[in-house]
């Protein structure tokens, strides 16, 4: 396995350029998450007591479902004109392609979070714009982008790819989701770094495991 940064960045930059032109991935994440926030805001009777505990669950569940839309979209654009095969015909390895796609997806998800956090804070009156929660979000997003890209690559050639991705991805993403929700809840309920440390460590550990697993498996995911 030899991954060069040049081609990785070329793949990610190409995805960014396509996104700037189409605004399909970030916008779909934003619209879906925003709608879920609004629906939950009306559906759940939020009190000062429960909004700090319920809010983080709404935030991360909305984001993870929205991320699935974005992940699916990031590979559908590769099927248009069979451009994915064009990349596979170049000398860069399959793992390089997928590391580039992961980087692109990571940047899209982080960009979406930058918008979603203030929206969530305004709608739920729960301040998630805190350094501890931003670090939790960054770590969670690394894990979600890595595993999500892995399973999106796996499901892109299946007929029921829209169903396959969540079915494969969500069970694997559960530990990240739990750690992100619990860690965020600790902070929204007045906790600090030391109280969130346990969840931060769990997120970092899962990130390491998922990144290693992805690097080891990426080269086999795009085989016929």
């Amino acid at each position, binding site marked *: 396995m*030899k991954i*060069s940064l*040049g081609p990785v960045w070329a*793949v990610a930059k190409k995805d960014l350029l*396509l996104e700037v032109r189409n605004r399909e991935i970030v916008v779909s994440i934003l619209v879906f998450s925003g709608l879920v926030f609004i629906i939950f805001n009306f559906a759940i009777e939020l009190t000062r007591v429960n909004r700090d505990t319920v809010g983080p669950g709404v935030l991360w569940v909305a984001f993870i479902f929205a991320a699935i839309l974005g992940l699916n979209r990031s590979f559908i654009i590769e099927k248009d*004109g069979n*451009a994915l095969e*064009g990349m596979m*015909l*170049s000398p860069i390895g399959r793992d390089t392609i997928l590391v580039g796609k992961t980087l692109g997806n990571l940047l899209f998800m982080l960009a979406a979070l930058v918008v979603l956090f203030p929206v969530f804070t305004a709608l739920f009156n729960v301040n998630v714009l805190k350094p501890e929660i931003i670090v939790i979000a960054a770590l969670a997003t690394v894990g979600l982008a890595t595993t999500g890209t892995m399973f999106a690559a796996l499901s892109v050639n299946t007929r029921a790819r829209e169903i396959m991705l969540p079915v494969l991805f969500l069970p694997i993403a559960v530990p990240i989701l739990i750690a992100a929700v619990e860690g965020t809840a600790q902070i929204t309920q007045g906790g600090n770094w030391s109280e969130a440390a346990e969840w931060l460590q769990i997120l970092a550990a899962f990130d390491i495991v998922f990144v290693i697993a992805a690097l080891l498996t990426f080269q086999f995911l795009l085989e016929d």
Partner: protein
Amino acid sequence: MIKESSPGAGQPKTQTADFAVVRATGVHKAYGDAGVLTGLNLEVPRGETITIFGPNGAGKTTLLRVLGSLTRPDRGEIAINGFSLKEQAAFARSTIGVVMHSSLLYGDLTARENLRFYGKLFGLGDAEDRIETLARRLNVAHRLDDKVRDLSHGLEKRVSFVRALLHRPRLLLLDEPESGLDQNTLGIFEELLAEFRAGGGATVLVTHSLELGLALSDRIAILGGGRIVFDDRSENVTIEELPEIYRRFTGEVS
């Protein structure tokens, strides 16, 4: 686990100066129970263009995909320009240019953005001059800054040719390259192919057009039952004889 070395890692030791551009031995590929390639052998030397004919489903496209390392064969050995596809696929791919049915281009990027992107993937430092030269040659330079989605099928195909030739490949794999090309562009394509051949490049061409295939190639082959069932020099076959040969070896009318 197959370890794949990359072109950036230095020249592999197994490549020799005297090699066939394509050497495929005992290649098998099946999809489910259906054997598409069943022990196919093929050798294409430098500077040779071979056209492969065959009915639909004969495995022509699968053969090109296997040679391009898009599809892994179940069994058999393939070396492209001396590089084994099992161990040195990245080196092999750096010497191959492919034109397929699909353009392999991003519709929402301009032709130039697509070509720059592929230039980077092939490790070309500054591909601008090369892009301009090839685009002018294929008469598509005036549309380089248009989105691929806005190009006609024929223009998109021309951009595909630029993409395939961008990195100066030594092997061209062409899957029905004539589709969508007008007579003028077909003439340019024939000239480019002749130049490519004169420069020592080898071409594996798949087409249903017996006339075009015979005219463009040094050698013709017919694929049937997953292997090469007919293989001869083009000069030994006339266009009048070819339909009958095709019918005899495939059981189908061309």
